[in-house]
């Protein structure tokens, strides 16, 4: 923490990025309890309020799956398989427990594969609904209360409404800091490269909220006054859209070919940071509404428009705003193979963005760099195409 205040934010981000989970491991050694979770649907406010260290799990795109396939089918989402493989290999052996939010079939149908294989002291499947109407918000509140109860039983401590409200404030502040950092990407050239930003995003999700906020602020202070050389060759400004892309490999492919990653709609990126939890008298209400209605994930059915066009705006309109605000020249839509939630909306997203005048490159791939060389040619050709 003190390091980041001394202007070493990027160095710290690099450290937590390359030694993922190392801070949680330290805190565990110091006596804290660590709960791992998957996906943007992990309600971090509640975990923070419970006094546990929450750690969003990631895999490693450079590592081949060597153990997980003995337990889990290869038709499962490649990201889920990779994280599971890492867990089976002991990369997360310091966890006290895990919460698996119901994001998709790949998680829902493998819940017992995870829990039976890892045998952690605490386990919870958070049955998040896929629709957003009024009864669903009520249901979301009910299942969040069940989640709170199980955490209380596990830690032996009551989670008060006041503690939740405080956690809401802390996480909202964390989101605001991250948005301020994102704002430094609006200039041309952006003050922070896409690869640097990715490291900050990954580091931020591995830390307790106060440390995460300090890290983000440290990075912002550090780069705010950066003098960027005016670009000689026009670098095209790219937005990356997808689920959990959590490695610099694909970003380096973009930036190595002269493109500039200036914005994202990723589940560890802007999706996490663009929408706050409203402070409501019952703090659970605001949390339920944020995860169900504000968070724009393909696993949440949104049908609120009066017609198809309006519904498209409700589903993807934020991407158009990003394109405008961050002066995006081209969008790369990166979807993992075997992903039904994203896969079924590829034609709609493409059409929506392209009809607004921004070209889209759609890539379907594994959660692995073994295929990166093939992606590079497509990315380079796309950059040449929009040059």
């Amino acid at each position, binding site marked *: 923490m003190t390091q980041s205040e001394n202007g070493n934010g990027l160095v710290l981000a690099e450290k937590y990025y390359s030694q993922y989970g190392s801070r949680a491991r330290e805190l565990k050694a110091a006596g804290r309890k660590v709960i791992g979770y998957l996906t943007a649907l992990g309600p971090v406010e509640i975990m923070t309020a419970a006094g546990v260290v929450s750690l969003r799990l990631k895999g490693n795109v450079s590592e081949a799956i060597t153990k997980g396939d003995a337990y889990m089918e290869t038709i499962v989402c490649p990201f889920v398989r990779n994280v599971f493989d890492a867990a089976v290999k002991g990369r997360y052996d310091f966890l006290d427990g895990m919460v698996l939010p119901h994001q998709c079939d790949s998680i829902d149908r493998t819940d017992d594969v995870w829990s039976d294989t890892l045998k952690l002291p605490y386990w919870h499947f958070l049955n998040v609904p896929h*629709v957003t109407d009024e009864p*669903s918000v009520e*249901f979301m509140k009910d299942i969040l209360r069940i989640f709170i109860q199980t955490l209380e039983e596990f830690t032996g401590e009551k989670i008060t409404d006041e503690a939740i409200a405080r956690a809401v404030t802390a996480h909202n502040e964390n989101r605001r800091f991250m948005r301020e950092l994102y704002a430094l990407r609006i200039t041309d050239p952006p003050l922070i490269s896409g690869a640097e930003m990715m490291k900050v995003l990954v580091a931020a999700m591995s830390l307790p909220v106060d440390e995460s906020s300090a890290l983000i602020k440290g990075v912002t202070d550090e780069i705010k006054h950066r003098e960027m050389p005016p670009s000689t060759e026009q670098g095209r400004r790219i937005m990356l859209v997808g689920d959990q892309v959590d490695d610099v490999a694909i970003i380096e492919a973009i930036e190595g070919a002269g493109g500039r990653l200036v914005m994202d709609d990723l589940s560890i990126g802007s999706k996490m940071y663009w929408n706050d939890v409203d402070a409501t008298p019952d703090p659970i209400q605001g949390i339920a509404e944020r995860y169900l209605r504000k968070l724009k994930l393909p696993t949440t059915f949104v049908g609120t428009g009066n017609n198809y066009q309006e519904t498209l705006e409700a589903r993807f309109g934020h991407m158009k705003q990003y394109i405008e605000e961050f002066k995006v020249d081209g969008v790369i839509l990166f979807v993992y193979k075997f992903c039904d*939630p994203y896969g079924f909306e590829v034609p709609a997203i493409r059409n929506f963005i392209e009809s607004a005048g921004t070209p889209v490159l759609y890539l*379907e791939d594994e959660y692995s760099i073994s295929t990166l060389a093939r992606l590079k040619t497509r990315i380079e050709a796309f950059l040449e195409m929009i040059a």
Partner: protein
Amino acid sequence: MAEGKKPRSLATQAAAKIAKFVRGNMSATLKAKEEGKKVAYAYINDGQDEIMRAMDIVPAWGESFAGVCAAKRDAEKYLQKAEADNFSRSLCTYATCTIGFDMWREELGGQTPPDAPWGGMARPDMIIGSAQQLCDPRFKWPQATQHYLQDVPVFVGNMYYPPWDPNRNHHEQEAIYVKYAKAELLELVRFCEKHTGKKMDWDRLAGLVDLTEKTWNLFIDTYELRKAIPTPMDTGDAMNTMVPITFNLATQDAYDYYKDLNDELILKNEKKQGVIENEKYRLLWGAGLPSWFALGDFQYFNDKGAVFPAEVTYRNAEKIERLDLPATNDPLERIAWRWVRFWTHWYDKARKRPGSSPKVERIIEYIEDYKCDGVVFHSAFSCRSWHAGIIHQAEILRKVYGDIPILIMEGDIVDISSYNEVDTHNRIDAFIETVDAYKRKGN
């Protein structure tokens, strides 16, 4: 779905009638327009059958259409159509096959594409999806379809059930789930009222809930007749006889169909008439949707002296008394309780056997009740909902039940491009040899 390229000889008369049944369902959608009825794209086992039927909405089932295309080995043209608009080949092929058909029909200005299997399905007036915890495609597919049929309204409701957790008593959570499911069913009623311009006849709905419960009971009574040795009907037939309970629930036709099947099976049992003459091995179809283009593989098992007296797949019904449903007069609440309890009624039993799981408990129950010598699973690459977690089920089964021969076959439901008949038959041969060795060892 009996009309495969390699027609399988069906054991029962009833199964042979299914082709007509399926054809009837498809043509009902085409006739609906003349009869002034609305057509809805619908998805199986969503708990929405009684409501649709009570509102005279004619369901058009993509899963049935795609299954027919697959059985006729005529799905590729639709799969390619969807692929051409960037739907990945790894997505649910029921969905991509049907969407491909929809895209083609739109290109033809609403005319049914030429040579559509059994005349195809009508363009829907609405799409009724469900985010029920059955699979992701049933809440993604509706809007993916709407992308091509933009004027067609879409409804997606939710119906969950408490997740399995060996350390928690799920009964404590049931009320939350039932309340939610009931509220979502009411949302569906409102949607149907809006788009049909009719009011729900609640008495009629209650009558259809009665009929559905009666059908569930009769269905299970009928299937239990397959416990007989030799078994009078096996999974090869059941992949046909699943049609009425799956696609025609809440209709008198479905009930009558199982009455006929029941009579037929009783008669066969009296005459000790089995599926095959010399029944040597009894197998359980443990999980997985079949490869509709390769139903002939069941015949291959039969030719080796093996029969499947029971299957988990499409046995989506249970004896109502076993579900122990709380008394209520609200038909929506009855539907909600029935489904919540259906998905969770193996939990209590599973909790009693350390290390077990509800899915495995169900498998063990069938192995014991139907006296099975081995278990076959089928893993379809395009469907995660049914087929993720099968390796684990097999593992738990071995651990908590004991050593039993298990075969996991690989293929797909609709996409034939990765199916390898020679390889599949080789695996079956090896499996039968294993089952045979186990039997000898046991005797």
